[in-house]
């Protein structure tokens, strides 16, 4: 499915930094958070002043810090993307079975992931396009979505080619079924509810219909908060 042809979509709505900043506002102080490789990592830059988050990297570290200064890295202190990182005060190392016990056992508060597709029932596809020639590789994505308490997806609303990513039903192989809680895109913040996609917030200057045209399932409008009921 392809939305109406337009060149505006890149220019309007939130930038990638904006999306990350918007998402970061929704993470409470003291949360244990796993950020996926790529765009999700941006979130760490925009955590509001006064909040401390503790970052988990599934290869065996709680209390991960930012990239090391040039030349100060350790090739055996890396994140799940195999990039060198640092450790914060209070950090702890552990093995893979313990690391995924944290994940599967529901001890992490939040997992932030990218997506190829998210369905209106919260199905996520983010590990494979199912192409015959591709080398299948899944890593910890299926464990994260199955185990972490809340799963936020951060993604462009549509692909570069204009394909919709928020869909009625995923066509790519699933990472997990009914696992996504909320999606943050360049156009809107959207909850996955029992009734389907519900807009929580629109990016400045972006209209509801504009987002609906670019979404492959019915969007529900934001719930109006009235002063008294």
């Amino acid at each position, binding site marked *: 499915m392809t939305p109406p042809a337009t060149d505006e979509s890149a220019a309007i709505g939130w930038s990638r930094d904006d999306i990350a900043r918007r998402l970061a506002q929704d993470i409470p102080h003291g949360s244990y958070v796993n950020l996926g490789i790529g765009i999700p990592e941006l979130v760490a830059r925009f955590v509001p002043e006064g909040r401390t988050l*503790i970052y988990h990297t599934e290869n065996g570290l709680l209390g991960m810090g930012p990239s090391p200064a040039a030349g100060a890295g350790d090739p055996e202190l890396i994140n799940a993307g195999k990039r060198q990182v640092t450790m*914060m*005060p*209070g950090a*702890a190392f552990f093995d893979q079975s313990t690391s995924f016990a*944290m994940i599967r*056992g529901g*001890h992490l508060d939040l997992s932030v992931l990218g997506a190829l597709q998210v369905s209106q029932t919260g199905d996520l596809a983010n590990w494979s396009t199912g192409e015959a020639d591709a080398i299948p590789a899944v890593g910890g994505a299926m464990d994260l979505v199955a185990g972490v308490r809340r799963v936020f997806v951060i993604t462009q609303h549509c692909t570069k080619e204009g394909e919709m990513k928020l869909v009625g039903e995923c066509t790519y192989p699933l990472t997990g079924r009914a696992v996504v809680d909320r999606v943050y895109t360049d156009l809107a913040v959207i909850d996955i509810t029992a009734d389907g996609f519900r807009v929580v917030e629109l990016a400045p200057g972006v209209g509801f219909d504009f987002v609906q045209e670019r979404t492959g399932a019915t969007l529900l409008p934001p719930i109006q908060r009235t002063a008294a009921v």
Partner: protein
Amino acid sequence: MIDKRVAGPAAAVADIHDGATVMIGGFGEAGSPIELIHALIDQGAKRLTVVSNNTGSGEVGLAALLKAGRVRKVICSFPRTANSTVFPDLYRRGEVELELVPQGTLAERIRAGGAGIPAFFTPTAVGTPLAQGKEHRLFGDTECVLEYGIRADFTLIKGRCADTHGNVLYHRTARNFAPPMATAAGVTIVQVSEVVDAGQLDAEAIVTPGIFVDRIVHVPSPQQESALIAAGARYP
């Protein structure tokens, strides 16, 4: 800044509700969180299900909690010891329910509960009364039974030292059930005789990572069950 310390044992256990399932660390007196248990007695919660390897000795700590009539059911591997009279009396009078579980199966069920594993197969206890009524399955030549993960509302354990993030170190064989129990409860409460700032512990040597710990209680000089019993103590 993250600081999981609470004011004291009473504050730590204040919200344990009637009917709660509570895991309590310790193997005999080693690792028994006596101050937290005594605070729980003072707090008054009733009809508790207690998951613990033993049932306490004398009339202090875990035995005192039983004596106070707060425990509906015990899940354990070895409910009698040299100085234990409280549990045997209650059990013979039919006032407490017992689920007897082999020690290793108990440890693995607790670990599974904390690791999001709802059930697993184990060869332990096959052919014994403790396997009766359980689902059996053959793996190769080995017959196994299906056992289920256990989770609790609260876990009470004793460590030696914690940092403010809740990373915990233990003392010798007092470690026993504390690490798996720390993972398997909605709220994990640890009493330690020393608290340090985050960053003061060796990240390679941490036994229980802070993600598993919700509340830290500083008990500088914890009492030892055998010393209390030798002194003729009873609680309350």
